[in-house]
């Protein structure tokens, strides 16, 4: 047998030779591994349970390694590994009660929030010394974790869900209408949004950059698609857009524009809904029963999309939501169903103006962006809610509202930097505490 690999060294804490495999050593190995797996100190009883598996295997004539492999299987199948266990406080009969999380529970919440993975040694060590209860130490941990490459998981998982760009994997734009859409473009679109999001996290930029940053990350393929000159090669690099580039901010990214379209055409309704849901935080309710569909075949031929939707809004039930959705979507009509810039659709010149229910009007994507930018707290609250849901793994309830407002307010005093929202969440009551479910 050659020298033990790195992972074997991590397992065999008291040496790898057969002679080292004493009973005491088995306990040490098991304790060490199960602490990592369960993300907390383990009880002597738990260790005994696992070492007895090793002993059973050895009694049957199996090797120590085989016994250890069995014990490791047991750890990996254990609910303490597979689930994040937070004990529920004993509730009084009528009222819901809350309790502060233990240091280890908090460490797990932090690491699954920011890394989608278990706490590392440094975080567990901080928990064991009670450091996470000290604000300064907690802040330092969060900054350390955001800078760690593992925070890419936040970009990919949270970003993918919030912006719905995961849908890119399954969109199938009409091949006849969009022959330039291929796998390479699909992957490039997703990569742009990931890298853009990551820059906001890593450089701790203001979240308002999501709305109207003047830069993004492009490779040659995407640059050609966007009509941006002087980008060659496969690698993505930061590109600062010229003032007339039509790009910058999420609403100019092909990923977002594609997943909010149908396979064969744009949908101002879907795009408007996307903006309301993900940037404004005011999703429209699902459509009422028995609404007629748009005559898709006729779009661009007999009447423009705008005319058709205007007709749709004549119906007062439809209008209650569509007056909110459609104008936002119209603002993005210069982008086709896979996000390429256009000035005409069929025989009609694109009209990208819109008027919101409150009377404010705008023209084109830039105009839409300045409308969103004018109310930074609205976007900040929307993003805070999404982040908090992700961090807690549950939907928000009315009793969470106060915490949300507080996070947004403190973010506002710090230019809405990304870390200010994350820190606000980490320090918030819903994140720090656990509530018993109300008895039913």
């Amino acid at each position, binding site marked *: 047998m050659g020298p033990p690999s790195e992972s074997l060294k991590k397992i065999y804490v008291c040496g790898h030779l057969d002679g080292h495999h004493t009973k005491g050593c088995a306990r040490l190995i098991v304790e060490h591994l199960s602490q990592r797996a369960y993300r907390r100190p383990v009880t002597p009883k738990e260790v005994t349970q696992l070492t007895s*598996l090793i002993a059973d295997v050895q009694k*049957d004539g199996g090797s120590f390694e085989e016994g250890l492999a*069995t014990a490791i299987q047991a750890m990996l199948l254990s*609910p303490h590994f*597979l689930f994040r*266990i937070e004990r*529920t406080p004993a509730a009084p009969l009528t009222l819901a009660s809350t309790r502060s999380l233990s240091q280890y529970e908090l460490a797990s919440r932090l690491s699954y929030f920011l890394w989608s993975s278990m706490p590392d040694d440094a975080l567990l060590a901080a928990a064991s010394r009670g450091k996470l209860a000290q604000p300064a130490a907690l802040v330092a941990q969060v900054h350390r974790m955001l800078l760690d490459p593992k925070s890419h998981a936040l970009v990919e998982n949270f970003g993918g869900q919030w912006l719905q760009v995961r849908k890119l994997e399954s969109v199938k734009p009409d091949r006849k209408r969009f022959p330039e859409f291929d796998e390479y473009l699909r992957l490039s679109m997703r990569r742009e949004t990931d890298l853009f999001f990551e820059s906001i996290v890593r450089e701790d930029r203001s979240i308002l950059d999501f709305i109207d940053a003047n830069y993004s990350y492009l490779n040659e393929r995407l640059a050609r698609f966007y009509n941006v000159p002087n980008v060659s090669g496969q690698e993505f690099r930061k590109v600062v857009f010229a003032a007339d580039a039509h790009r910058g901010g999420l609403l100019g990214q092909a990923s977002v524009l594609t997943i909010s379209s149908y396979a064969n055409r744009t949908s101002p309704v879907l795009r408007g809904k996307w903006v309301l849901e993900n940037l404004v935080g005011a999703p429209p309710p*699902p*459509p009422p*029963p028995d609404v007629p569909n748009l005559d898709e075949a006729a779009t661009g031929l007999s009447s423009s999309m705008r005319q058709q939707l205007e007709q749709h809004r004549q119906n007062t039930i439809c209008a209650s939501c569509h007056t909110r959705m459609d104008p936002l979507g119209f603002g993005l009509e210069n982008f086709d169903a896979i996000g390429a810039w256009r000035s005409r659709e069929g025989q009609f010149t694109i009209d990208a103006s819109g008027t919101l229910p409150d009377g404010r009007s705008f023209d084109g994507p830039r105009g839409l962006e300045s409308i969103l930018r004018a109310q930074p707290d609205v976007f900040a609250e929307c993003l805070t809610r999404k982040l908090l849901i992700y961090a807690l793994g549950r939907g928000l309830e009315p009793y969470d509202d106060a915490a949300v407002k507080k996070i947004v307010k403190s973010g506002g005093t710090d230019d809405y930097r990304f870390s200010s929202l994350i820190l606000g969440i980490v320090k918030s009551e819903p994140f720090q505490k656990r509530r018993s479910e109300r008895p039913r």
Partner: protein
Amino acid sequence: MIITGKRLPRRTFLQGVGTVIALPMLDAMVPAFARRAVLDLKAPIRVAFAYVPNGIVMKDWTPKTTGKDYEFTRILKPLEAFREDILVLSNLDSHTGNALGDGPGDHARAGASFLTGVHCRKTAGADIRGGVSVDQIAAAKLTGATRFSSLELGCEDSRTVGDCDSGYSCAYTNSLSWRTPQTPMPPEVNPRAAFERLFGTEDLSLDPQTRARRAKYRKSILDMVSQDTRSLVKTLGPADRRKMDEYLFQCARLNDGLRVQKKTRVRLRPLSIGLLREYRSSFLSM
């Protein structure tokens, strides 16, 4: 819907069709074993439900006439050799899959009502309510004869949370199979994971004693974690408890599998390459 005792088409469906719910697959590949011991075993009768979500060109599907001597249509043609074993049933439209005042969401309702006959509650939240599906009723009743009481397989997307269709939970769109009205059984969509579930990741080159010992340890492991879970459940709130019940159910399912495997002593093996080819060509001809 096709119900048949023949073996060949089943794998065909598994490969080709939108979503499949199949009852046991243990020695499903009996013809693939050219081994007497296995051939002597009487294969349990199985039930499979296949679902094609994007629809079928019905004029090339439905036979023109009713009764025994109907002419096979273009799509059904490859099944003609099994005429004696096949019934083609029409007029099985599911009324409960209609809107019934709930507005858009046909995709979700179609999936949720297909095997349950229940009109599901319109919600995208955690308060889902469908119905128990017929395959799960059968699975619960027929459990014990095979390693798995049921298998749920699909081609894409097995999420059970979030809004997948006009205010309907993804659980409705993605799960045809429901163990209880609140418990969808999401399909396995990763062919590799399905394969490993059927045939295990066990090293078949090991000697029989070693493999028997490992099976025994798997049982001790499952016993240990089940016991742990039961004591853990007492300390949890109702929502977490439901999650743990699911986990316990899956542990029990694995344990049952081990028991049946021991009883039948059937060695599981993947299909031979030749047979895979045969299935592939009959699939392509459909």
